[in-house]
């Protein structure tokens, strides 16, 4: 038997001796439900104590376009959270194309917002450190850290996809929270200030995903 083969046998003995059964990872549906519930409790606390909902919320919720945007973003958040849960397992529960759903919904939202631009007109006010960007960071940093920490307990074989789904789920939910708080309905405002912290975070995650989700 070769040296390498001996090492393999030694490794097996060591792993078997040190083996202790761990609690199996929960089903992706349970994980998604739990994650969404905890996240929205956090958002509710931030909205109530720090940000405050917009004064004309009830009136705005009666607009079908606004409601459509909120529902679509929520679906993006839900599907991206589910995709993250699925991606924690090496074979993704045999759901290889799971990321197609949130990405398709995201494309639909982008198209929806883009179609409104000709009606609104594109007006770029001087870029400044708007309170929406800071509130976006407040909504996003802790949940993103929690999402990464939780994902590292899994064993993803697609670290880049995992990173993007983590960011997308938090960005989508955060977008909903910001739309409930910010009374500026302009697409250029919400497209830039509500989304930009997450775009930057997504770029960073893209570069370090393999190291971040290493197991």
């Amino acid at each position, binding site marked *: 038997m*070769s040296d*390498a*083969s001996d*090492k*393999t*046998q030694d*490794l*097996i*003995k060591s*792993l*078997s*001796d040190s*083996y202790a*059964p*761990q*609690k*199996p*990872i929960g089903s992706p549906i349970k994980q998604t439900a739990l994650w969404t519930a905890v996240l929205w409790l956090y958002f509710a606390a931030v909205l109530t104590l720090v940000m405050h909902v917009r004064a004309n919320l009830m009136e705005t919720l009666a607009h079908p376009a606004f409601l459509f945007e909120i529902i679509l973003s929520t679906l993006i958040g839900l599907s991206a959270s589910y995709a993250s849960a699925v991606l*924690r*397992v*090496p*074979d*993704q*529960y*045999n759901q290889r194309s799971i990321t197609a759903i949130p990405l398709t919904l995201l494309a639909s939202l982008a198209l929806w917002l883009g179609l409104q631009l000709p009606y609104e007109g594109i007006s770029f006010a001087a870029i400044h450190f708007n309170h929406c960007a800071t509130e976006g960071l407040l909504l996003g940093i802790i949940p993103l850290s929690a999402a990464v920490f939780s994902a590292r307990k*899994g*064993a993803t*074989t697609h670290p880049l996809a995992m990173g993007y789904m983590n960011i997308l789920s938090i960005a989508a939910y955060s977008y909903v929270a910001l739309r409930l708080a910010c009374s500026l309905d302009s697409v250029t405002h919400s497209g830039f200030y509500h989304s930009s912290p997450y775009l930057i975070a997504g770029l960073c995650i893209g570069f370090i995903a393999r190291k971040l989700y290493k*197991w």
Partner: protein
Amino acid sequence: MQYQRTQYDTNEDFWHAMAGYAQDGDKAAYHALLSDLSVFLPRYLMRSLASEDWAQDITQEILLSIHKSFHTYSPNRPFTPWMMAITSFRRTDYLRQHYRKQGEGSVSLENAEFLTSHVTNPTGAGEYKDIEAALAGLPAAQKVAFEMTKIHGYSVKETAEQTGTTESSVKVNVHRALKKLQEALK
């Protein structure tokens, strides 16, 4: 308790059973599972690797990964797809690190020096089985055009004259061969 592979009909049946017992805390079943995988994995990996030592190194990494990620396996699902996902991941990771260390980087298929010193050179043949297999898989006209222009250094005009085709046809065949090789070696 002694678990025997022969008591089960297929690899999947055995692995699935052992994984289930192991998750209930049976160390003997866990040992039997890893031992059987240590026989299966090198044989499986050798189909696409040149070196037995590489196969053993990757096997060790896979066994460690299985140990670290065992909590992500559910006994109500088949074991093989879960294990093969880890195998594929670790194999790719190992080869990526190996080639990065070697300083090969990505070499263009138009690099004639690389092709003559590795692809057609028998001493390097084993290590580049993948490239040679991809070349062998090309249609005859594309293979001839590619080898004559990129490996043996003939011009497009000379290749067209020798093969009795037009220069456009040679260029098209070389282009298609490059595309097919890029797809095959992704």
